[in-house]
């Protein structure tokens, strides 16, 4: 905990704070992916991970001499996350229409 306290002592606008936030988001996202059995729940976890990466990029860009490429990368992450979500939700809908369920455990059309 000592490290965290030291990081917080640097004031609100320090790189470490943003990294900490992104790290927490990433961990939460991974936790959601692993623990959720519902397809939409897993996709929400993926969104968290992508946003964690986005925060990292923007923070690094800002504290690395106000570079632009990190900011641009974050924009692309947002756009691609939207595209991916659109395709994913369409497929989830198709699965719901054929299986009447989107729980991954209940999708057992194909097994060993």
């Amino acid at each position, binding site marked *: 905990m000592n490290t965290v306290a030291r990081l917080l002592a640097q004031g609100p606008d320090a790189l470490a704070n943003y990294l900490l936030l992104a790290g927490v988001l990433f961990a939460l996202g991974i936790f959601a992916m692993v623990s959720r059995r519902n397809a939409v729940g*897993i996709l929400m976890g993926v969104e968290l991970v992508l946003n964690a990466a986005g925060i990292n990029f923007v923070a690094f860009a800002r504290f690395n001499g106000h570079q632009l490429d990190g900011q*641009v*990368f974050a924009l692309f992450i947002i756009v691609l996350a939207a595209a*991916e979500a659109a395709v*994913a939700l369409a497929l989830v809908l198709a699965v719901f229409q*054929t299986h009447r369920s989107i729980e991954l455990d209940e999708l057992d059309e194909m097994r060993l």
Partner: protein
Amino acid sequence: MPEGFRDLLGQNIRHLWLIVPEVLVVFGFLVALVYDLILPEERRRTTGYICLIFIVGALWASVVEMGTYVNDAKHAYMEQRVVPAGPDAGAETRTVQVQREHEVLQSKPIFSGMVRHDAYGNFFRMVLLLGTAITLLVSMHAKELFGKNHGEFFLLVTATCLGGMFLSAASNLLMIYLSLEALSVISYAMAGYLRANRKSAEAGMKYVIYGAMASGIMIFGMSYLYGITGTLDLAEVADKFRGLEGEMATKASRGALVAVLAMVFAGLLYKIAAAPFHYWSPDVYEGAPTTATGFFSVVPKAAGFAVLVRVVAEFFPIGAGGGWDYHKLEKVFAALALLTMFIGNLAALGQSNAKRMLAYSSIAHAGYMLAGLSVLRDSSGPAAVLYYLVVYLFMNLGAFMVLVAMENVHGSCELKDLRGAARQQPLLGVALVIFLFSLTGLPPLAGFIGKYLIMVELAKEQNWAMVVFIGLNSVISLYYYMRLAKTVAIDAPTAEVGVAEPTPAIYRALAVGQVVALLLLFVYFEPIQRLCQQVVEPLR
């Protein structure tokens, strides 16, 4: 307009001439998209021809480009010239080394360093376009795809190919991410293409969920790479990263660097379905339309290997060592290769569905190729992988094409329904047996040379264990390949299938073409192998 901006614009427009194949594919996609909309529903199959014309055009453009590379390489290697020995030496001659600039072979960054223009990218471009062209021809006659949306399938195939082409040339983290996503997101739609089919919908959803997880983790790793190096350019990232690794004093900070790199590699290994990132692939391959399965097992995998080799070459300069111990990476790849081979082959043994069996077999083949990457002493290990990919393209697409043809007649890929299927389609039956022999790695087929080249590289490293394990795996795979061959060619049919409609002529032509290609790649493997070598060499 500011001066700098105009310069940049002009430069980018000039660079368009260097990516003519990609431009052609984009135009093909757009033309086919509009064409598909104005066509009456029952004639949408012809959209495939539009896509095909542009894909073949792009293929031709990249073959022409490859010709210039080969030409340049030839001159560069013919360095010995005979010249008069001196001003008054008379007829006496001597041989001198003439240094030639590899002007053309040099890898050039284009579009502000987003992609590289080099023979390596062009090689993969050719592989991807060839795979796409074959897939387009096959999907035009695949019954399961028929319907009012048939035209869309060609568009998806074409667009996926475009993503792969950019991926194999990408040299910037942003570009790698963008093209990887372009490749993946469209593949998700292809896997779930038969929306009303329970298996296909399930396959699509599983693909998108696992794929999104993998790309999320990869992008998070990339964000740290950007943070610690302050740039997105792959070469600069790798240089600075290597420099940092030397400075890091504590074990913990070095471990953090390795973890960051591992995240990025996880995303790439996911794409080639290497164990332990292969969980998605059997289900996706079984559920997706058979044409799409054949496509997935070749084109995205080739693109994945393209970017994997490029990233490895940047971070661990092949041969040079560059202060980094590439032996550790060799060990990692060797372990992954063993795991992938064994999981693929052992799981394939018990399958009762031909499609799922070939899905596991394609996992095993990714394992053989990874074994080639476990020799990073010089560029011949990766070159062997490139050769293997070319062979794999023909034999795997061939096997899947025969499956599509048989599914057209029998309506299923279950082994019990395919019994004696060769009686209806004798030519394709024979071709399937040949493809399966090649997949096993038996001479006189190119699959043998593919495995042989990889084993030779391993043997040069005295890595006898890997050589033995590859041999062992070939023996295991012989069992299930021959089981499929026996089912199709020897077993008596269970139910009498009525008079089957004739096999589309294009399938027969493709089968013959691919068998001939496999034989030619066996007999004349040397020029192709040399080409692979020349292509990999400029990657530092």
